[in-house]
């Protein structure tokens, strides 16, 4: 929020730029466009479909580029600057490409009391990411620390993409990683 980016967001700068050269292909065509139309029917304003539309972009493209923000802005009668202001407010929209596996580890106090820091260390070590927010050289992993995931009794919860894994301990990390396709 205030400064609510994942630490190390800037480390993706290079990879982000690589995408600017190819011509932009719109996200909302065909079935995806229909999906948005259905969503618009749930709300009395177009603006209310903004978060759902951004989720669709991220599902289709893996991240939310400036061009995609412009596309969403046009579809919902908003300005690109407005859309960017919303995107940057929330922590879950990626403004840069991330690794194939985006790993989020909760380190808020309750999990911290149960060894979350060691889990983070284990992920950084075994993924080859080295530091928080950086993507591993093979492009497979990005690891970040996040605030309470709402599963504090199952310390330490970890999210890998859409997968929510409970009760992760440092020693379980290597096996978890080898199970990923």
């Amino acid at each position: 929020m205030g400064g609510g980016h994942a630490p190390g967001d800037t480390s993706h700068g290079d990879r982000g730029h690589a995408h600017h050269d190819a011509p932009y292909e719109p996200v909302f065509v065909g079935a995806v466009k229909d999906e948005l139309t259905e969503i618009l029917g749930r709300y009395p304003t177009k603006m209310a479909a903004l978060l759902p539309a951004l989720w669709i972009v991220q599902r289709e493209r893996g991240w939310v580029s400036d061009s995609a923000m412009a596309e969403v802005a046009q579809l919902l009668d908003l300005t690109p600057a407005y859309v960017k202001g919303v995107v940057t407010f929330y922590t879950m929209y990626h403004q840069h490409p991330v690794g194939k596996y985006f790993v989020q580890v909760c380190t808020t106090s309750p999990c911290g009391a149960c060894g979350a820091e060691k889990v983070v260390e284990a992920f950084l070590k075994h993924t080859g990411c080295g530091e928080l927010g950086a993507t591993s050289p093979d492009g497979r992993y990005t690891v970040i620390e996040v605030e309470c995931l709402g599963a504090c009794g199952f310390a330490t919860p970890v999210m890998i993409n859409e997968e929510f894994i409970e009760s992760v301990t440092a020693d379980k990390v290597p096996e978890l990683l080898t199970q990923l396709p």
Partner: protein
Amino acid sequence: MGYPHTSHPKETPVLSQYFGDPGARSLDGWKQRGGYRALEKALGMSPADIVNEVKESGLRGRGGAGFPTGVKWSFMKPGDGKPHYLCVNADESEPGTFKDREIMRWTPHALIEGAAIGAYAIGAETCYIYIRGEFTEPLRVMNAAVKEAYAAGVIGPNAMGTGKRIDVHVHKGAGAYICGEETALMNSLEGKRGNPRIKPPFPAVAGLFGKPTTINNVETLAAVPHILNRGAAWYKGMSRGNPKSTGTKLFSVCGNVAKPGNYEVEMGFPFKEFLYELCGGPLPGRRFKAIIPGGSSVPIQTVEEAEATVMDYEGFIAQGTMLGSGGVIVFDDSQCMVKHIARLARFYAHESCAQCTQCREGTAWTTRILERIERGHGTMADLDTLLELADQMTGKTICVLSDSCAAPIVSGIKKFRSEFEAHITGKRCPMGATAAA
């Protein structure tokens, strides 16, 4: 049933009865377990009668503030010619709290049923369930359940065949603790940044899309079908003698405790018995040191205070804290309180929406000072500065996130001052949590 442990005989499982029972998830399974009878009954009653029944039950909001639910509903005026909305607050992001998650994962139709009854009672045709984006499994389960409920005609343009329209939509959040604050949630739903609004106007006058709106927590709404099925008197009877705190409450328990998980007990249950019997006490060889009983935003209790507490709204206040969201965080004697209080301050600094100066500056500044003390670089004067800042952060901002950051700092310094002083005089963490750099 229980989850992840089996129910303790001293629990009173009402909401948690089917936790861990995958058969309860489907519409058919839910109906076999008595589901949707309350909705059918409700749609045959007048909205005013439902509101009165809920008022009579004594049910209070389970999202943190404990406002009487029936009274909140009575602020809505059905038939005023305006669209009304019901928002379900499923943003559950308060550190220590993970009960709404279990309600949605195991009994999605309990929430849909409670929400549909609530919507009808306040004259709303549309209900939005705002679920935090990180809750991927609850989102999947809720989306599937809503789809099923539409297909069966339980909700939709002709809910339960009564000709009444009740639409229910799941809305996915995108990562922001502040969106659990009711007006921030409404802004977020409208496609805006999740900044809390200045009140008044209150949501019942101008809420979502500027229209009269009620917002309720998941657990609050999940209790409503039981109240309609079994009556207000039955619900009120589940309390240990305090008529202001009635019914059962789900407490999420985490941290350094033998059996973390959710426990459902009658209001007024003794906290000591709860911690040592139900939750299994401390881990082997350890002793409890500090308890935050209502999610990270309430004052920290010493073990002595916790052991003297009865678990209801008034009982927690009598022992210097609040029931809050019912997220019980336990720290044992292996933990450094300075480190945890610093980490909690960092949480609030990260989550501040930054529109109020006292909050934006206060959360960041207190975090810096606390982390400095933790590293062994603090001074005694820092403790006074922290208390002064905390005072500036309390009661002066648009929402209470700022106050929530101050609560553990003030109570922490008051009750664990010797740990702060040991960091300052010894120039390092005495527990070795952080060596002096």
